[in-house]
């Protein structure tokens, strides 16, 4: 494994499968009454969050604690891009405190890579979401969840068709998933209005559809992305109603999905906008599993980066 996890591109297919397999084992342990492993005892992991994300932070916190690491939560929100303490000074502080691993969430794309490249600190850096770039552990937990339901938790995802629907342009989850799913052999289709796809998306190894209903019954997984209401003001789409009608997963579309199709969402959901309540709560939905699996996948990541060998 590498020293850091900054991007899915850092991982080979073998690395990725190793994380998933390790997560599988760790998940079994966390189902026992005593949920803790001594692996990272005495190691310090800092959750460095420059952006609010309670769900991701507590997921990493639970993962680190189940491996017996000491966890420090460093909420740096308010230290906005131009004001407050710089990333460099924060890193120097963490170095002085002896952090072995830093889990960083930051609004600027590339912040995790800067932290890793600049030698301001020596610990492992784990990207927990950087701007609109990547969110690698989210993609890993999504792959874990897909594998659990459609591949009996074995091997890769070859042969599966995955639709990623919504605001791909601003989504770090989509970028990480595109890379990982491709690595694991799945076929990805991006479904979005052209305004919410990056220019040059044709250079990605994906299919692109502007029409959600086309091929709807052929997907094995439908992954809905959160749409921020503010995007409407920047003219990305005319209205919430129109967006929801054309790209939302409503009851009618839900009924047209294939029998075993999984419905996924990285959360937090805008119920009624990109996903209807009946879709989110349907038997096809594995959204709660995604959250649960997040802990196991993050345990595996920390274990392999900091405690392996």
């Amino acid at each position, binding site marked *: 494994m590498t020293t850091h996890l900054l991007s899915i591109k850092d991982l080979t297919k073998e690395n990725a499968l190793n994380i998933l397999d390790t997560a599988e084992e760790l998940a079994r342990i966390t189902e026992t009454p005593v949920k803790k492993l001594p692996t990272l005892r005495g190691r310090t992991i800092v959750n460095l969050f420059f952006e609010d994300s309670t769900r991701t932070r507590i997921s990493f916190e639970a993962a680190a604690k189940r491996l017996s690491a000491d966890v420090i939560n460093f909420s740096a929100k308010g230290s906005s*891009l131009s004001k407050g303490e710089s990333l*460099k000074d924060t890193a120097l502080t963490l170095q002085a405190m002896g952090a072995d691993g830093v889990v960083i969430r930051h609004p600027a*794309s*590339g912040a995790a890579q800067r932290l890793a490249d600049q030698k301001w600190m020596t610990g492992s850096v784990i990207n927990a979401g950087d701007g609109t770039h*990547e969110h690698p552990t989210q993609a890993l937990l999504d792959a874990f969840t897909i594998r659990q339901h459609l591949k009996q938790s074995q091997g890769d995802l070859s042969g599966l068709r995955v639709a990623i629907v919504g605001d791909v342009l601003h989504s*770090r989850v989509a*970028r990480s998933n595109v890379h990982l799913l491709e690595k694991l052999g799945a076929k990805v289709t991006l479904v979005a209005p052209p305004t919410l796809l990056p*220019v*040059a998306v044709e*250079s990605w190894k994906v299919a692109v559809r502007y029409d959600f209903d086309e091929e709807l019954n052929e997907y094995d997984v439908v992954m809905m992305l959160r749409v921020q209401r503010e995007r409407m003001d920047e003219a990305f789409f005319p209205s919430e109603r129109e967006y929801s009608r054309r790209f939302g997963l409503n009851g009618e579309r839900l009924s047209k999905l294939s029998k075993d199709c999984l419905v996924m969402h990285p959360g937090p959901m805008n119920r009624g906008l990109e996903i209807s309540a009946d879709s989110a709560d349907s038997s096809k939905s594995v959204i709660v599993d995604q959250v649960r699996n997040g802990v196991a996948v993050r345990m595996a990541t920390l274990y392999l980066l900091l405690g392996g060998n």
Partner: protein
Amino acid sequence: MSILLKNVKTASGDLVEIAFESGRFIEPKDASKEAQVIDGKGLTVIPGLVDLHTHLREPGKEDAETVLSGSKAAVSGGYTAISAMPNTNPVADTAGVVEQVYRLGQVHGICDVFPIGAVTVGQLGKSLAEMGAMNSSEAKVRIFSDDGNCVWDSLIMRRALEYVKSFDGLIAQHAEDPRLTHDSQMNEGAVSAELGLKGWPAAAEESIIARDILLSEHVGSRLHICHLTTAGGVELVRWAKARGIQVTAEVTPHHLLLTDEKARSYDPIYKVNPPLRTDRDVQALREGLADGTIDIVATDHAPHPAENKECEWAAAAFGMIGLETSLSITYLAMVKSGLMKLEDLLPKMAKNPAQIGRYEGHGELKPGNWANFALIDTSAIWKVERTGIVSKSKNSPFVGSELPVKVIKTFFRGNEVYSQ
């Protein structure tokens, strides 16, 4: 007393003698018998370079650069005339500020510092600055630009172009439609899509160039396009010149060499406005410079203190320094690549910019002109070291690179102002 420079080569390789007296070039035969002789064996003499796009940060941000430190950086790169962009604090939008900058240059006496005046008050694009007063001032400003702020309002741009005609001025436009580039971080394309950095589309540059060319044709005024970066922009300028429109254009050394692939490092040393584009654009810029579509090379020397680059990409300032590496980088991109000969490249860095700026006595080694020149070693290879950078700011993307062509000495008005 006259001074005679012997044993030097011209850019085309001919051995020549160069003579000067009282700060100006004279015919070597007119040099006095007891003339002091400088032996330039092995070196090439070039006219003092002229930059039409420099940021000096004084007044207002003297920790990044001053007129003095910028002048020293300039002469170490072979420049003897630089043009100070108006985005200082206060903005150079009045006769008072441009005179202050001009006088500082004269007092230091290292090179000429010609201020560029703002087109609009505070560079805000709303109302015209007193361009007439800046022209009549001691600084005799002829070039006006709102620098990093594009004059986006079509009516203001039209009026500015018309207004400066009365004193043979020109408007230097930073072509960037602000509505298409809000918060933009890098060139919009395959790399920005992957990196999740907000894109700055080529169309935002080209649409303004197209509009301004048409305005320039309509009112018959001189238009200068700053730092062209796109293949489409080169095409537009080529079209305009073919129609006889009075448009000139510049390209920076870094846009002739670097592409947006550099952003993959997320190192904001490569963050610059307009952004680094694709390889296809770089090739088009090189061709445009070689065939005369692009008139000049300009540095867009943009000093920033370390803390504005030692951070995440989005938080970093736009810009890179360039005065000290300009000749080497341009040589690398144009001469080493076989596209141009040095003697054809130099006019784009000296004679042409002097002509566009109406900088009299600059740009050519000819009797009557100021004795502004540099001696360079065209066979030298030198490594850019951070500690060797003369500018107050060290934000060069070329630190660590080995570059061709070294400036050995620079003379301004007959005085040696730099020696390596």
